[in-house]
């Protein structure tokens, strides 16, 4: 696919050259999570989702390549959040909701008959729009919650929690108050805490449903910087209202409308020369 020259994306550093130790503590440091593993992608085939009789997602086929960030954009009610929640089988938790089709993590169909739903969700983590740390738990306990709630006994719980906090770049800010309540942090920090919580369980895929829409611009940029780092280790799917955000973080973008995929292209192409008329009208703000 040709287009106007694209420059390769470099993660933007907000500040210029702070002290070395501060830098390593403040910046997301995924090497803390250990050796890189082979990434895993997701394939969605012929996915349909219903709320009772409402047909919210109509026959979706998408590939989410391993270790890449794919963004999903579209107007409200187009089914993007629903579709994403079908990937980690959260959709079926809603009373009256059901889905059909297949979602495969590499070769495993998560809708298979013998598949343990909780295991699926451990492999495919999720971060929500509004940060939701557990209010009765401290920062440490919040990050450990994933491990404790899923019964993953581990002798090095402390280490895993510290690693996760380093991975999301929160370590420097919270290392001296790991026992203070999780909800005492600012909105942006809470969201990164939730990301640390998801990362601590060591999933393969991370789904993000508008992760920055409740945050102020600086916090948003920090989360985006984090996403850019996270992709080196996880496959990331991000639903977003904010087209500039999709443009900044995602390698490829899917545009959905009325439950269907209208266009799925490399992000630069979608935003400079979309193929579909409807995509053009949406991104230029002629409707939406």
């Amino acid at each position, binding site marked *: 696919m*040709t*287009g*106007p020259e694209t420059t390769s994306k470099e993660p933007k550093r907000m500040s210029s050259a702070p002290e070395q130790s501060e830098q390593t503590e403040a910046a997301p440091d995924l090497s803390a999570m250990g050796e890189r593993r082979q990434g895993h992608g997701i394939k969605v085939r012929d996915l349909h989702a219903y709320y009772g009789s409402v047909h919210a997602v109509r026959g979706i086929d998408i590939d989410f390549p391993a270790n890449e960030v794919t963004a999903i954009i579209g107007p409200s009610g187009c089914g993007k959040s629903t579709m994403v929640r079908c990937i980690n089988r959260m959709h079926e938790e809603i009373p009256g909701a059901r889905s059909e089709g297949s979602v495969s993590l590499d070769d495993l169909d998560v809708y298979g008959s013998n598949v343990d739903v909780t295991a699926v969700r451990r492999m495919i983590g999720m971060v929500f729009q509004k940060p939701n740390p557990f209010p009765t738990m401290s920062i440490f306990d919040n990050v450990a919650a994933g491990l404790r709630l899923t019964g993953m006994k581990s002798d090095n719980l402390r280490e895993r929690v510290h690693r996760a906090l380093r991975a999301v770049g929160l370590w420097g800010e919270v290392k001296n108050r790991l026992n203070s309540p999780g909800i005492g942090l600012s909105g942006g920090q809470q969201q990164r805490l939730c990301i640390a919580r998801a990362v601590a369980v060591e999933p393969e895929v991370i789904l993000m449903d508008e992760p920055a829409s409740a945050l102020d611009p600086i916090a948003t940029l920090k989360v985006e910087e984090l996403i850019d780092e996270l992709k080196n280790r996880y496959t990331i799917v991000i639903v977003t209202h904010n*087209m*500039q955000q999709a*443009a900044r973080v995602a390698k490829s973008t899917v545009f959905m409308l009325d439950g269907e995929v209208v266009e799925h292209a490399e992000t630069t192409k979608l*935003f*400079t*020369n*979309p193929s579909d008329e409807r*995509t*053009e009208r949406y*991104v*230029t*703000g*002629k*409707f*939406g």
Partner: protein
Amino acid sequence: MQETRHQFREDLRELERQVLGGLDLVIGQLDRALESVSYQDVELAAMVVADDDRIDGRYLEVHQGILSLLARQSPVATDLRIVAALLHCIRCIERMGDQCVNIAKLVPLSGHDAPKDKDTLDAIERMGQLARSEVSEAKDALRTRNVELAQDIVRQDAEINRLNRAIFKRAVEIGDDLELREWGMFMILVARCLERVGDNAVEIAEQVVFVVTGLFREVADIGASAETAQSN
């Protein structure tokens, strides 16, 4: 119901109008510069030089307007291509204006005697007409987003290039005549300015194709991409 992003669309349309107006200014300058060459009208030439300020001013206006639009409105897709194209075009306009000035500056230098060689003069006039028509068509192509018109500009430009080479040859021929020699060399320079004007018009044509098809092609391929744009 008001269209969405009404102010943005209005601002974009205004920028386009300013660029099209800039092309009108260029056409005006070109006409007067050519006239001053034909009739050795030094005063007219001086006016052309002075009026270039208007084109420079237009350039700054459009440039500033584009920066402001980019900062405030984050244009994407077609809007982004239009903005990028307008930036290219206004630079071409500024350069074309400078070429007209260069032509005008050559007039007093070639002396107050009546021009000497009819062949050369005809060729210059012909080149001037072609250049003018190219600029005018570029304006229309931009205004109507017409890819076929852009293609035509490329064709005309081949003719300008040919005339440029012909004038050079002719100047060499008449170079033996001492009286004509200096004038002939000035005419070479005039021809080159006109050829540059043509090149800038071709660049504008390329931008039109870019806006419509999203593909950036050098001159030679514009014919092919026009066909693909048709079939899309």
